[in-house]
């Protein structure tokens, strides 16, 4: 059995496998597939609860992933933010010394969630400028991107 604690290297290696097979477009195609077929829980929570659905979704996942983060919700303003000080997934990949992580690993967080949230009427910003330090930020706002 592959433990769920080994999933991140398995995921990273899947990106590498797909890229070697069919180029970056195959990796992006996979991310789109995962967004469409695996993120129904986020899609359903936001459809039912509005922007609070983001809080409910990430409150569950980030706690189970033992992330180091601040998460804020302002329902009236229609804003949801995550400041990820240390992403457990990217952090693990950076710590592995016997396996090379997929170089564009963090890009999946941009595509997966944007693809769910924008069609539901939210803008999605992903700050990837600190991913080399396993840090990033997400801002979701009610309303279409300006």
């Amino acid at each position: 059995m592959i433990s769920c604690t080994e999933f991140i290297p398995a995921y990273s290696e899947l990106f590498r496998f797909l890229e070697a097979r069919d180029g970056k477009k195959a990796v992006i195609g996979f991310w789109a597939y995962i967004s469409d077929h695996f993120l129904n829980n986020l899609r359903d929570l936001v459809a039912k609860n509005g922007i609070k659905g983001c809080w409910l979704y990430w409150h569950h996942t980030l706690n189970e992933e033992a992330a180091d983060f601040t998460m804020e919700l302002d329902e009236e303003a229609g804003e949801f933010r995550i400041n990820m000080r240390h992403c457990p997934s990217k952090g693990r990949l950076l710590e592995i010394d016997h396996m090379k992580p997929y170089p564009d690993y963090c890009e999946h967080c941009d595509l997966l969630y944007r693809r769910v949230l924008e069609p539901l009427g939210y803008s999605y910003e992903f700050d990837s400028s600190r991913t080399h330090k396993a840090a990033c930020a997400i801002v979701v706002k009610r309303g279409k991107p300006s």
Partner: protein
Amino acid sequence: MATLKIDRKAGDNVYLHKDFHGGLSAGLEYVRLRYGEQAVRDYLRQFALAWYAPLTKALREKGLPALREHYDHIFKLEGGEVHFTESPDELLIEVLLNPAVAHMKANGYAISPLFNETVATVGKTICESTPYAMEMLRYEAETGRYTQRFFRRAA
């Protein structure tokens, strides 16, 4: 209208996100549908060669106790139920409760028909370039219960 804020440190929680089993299953299914069954095995072999390289090294150096230690650790971590039968040249692993399959079934995740390869292909790959081999004696897709046998190859 709620205003909520939480601040968490990594040490506040235990790293155990079982929904990742569903993510792995979805990944296998994508590869199967797009590239075929052999591609799933090729991917898992590539992953196992990379990720389990230290375990393969330990198997070469310490023998079957290295495998028992590894699997004992992950089944304890995930709350599985497993029985080990050991002899100097053989390790039988009988999984009575597969926590990956149990979690996916309990939470409505689709289970790839090739999910058994996460045991079979991975087990065989870990043994590559060692004096050992692995054979699957049983895998029940419905429950994920399985029995696998690691053994010393004939000289």
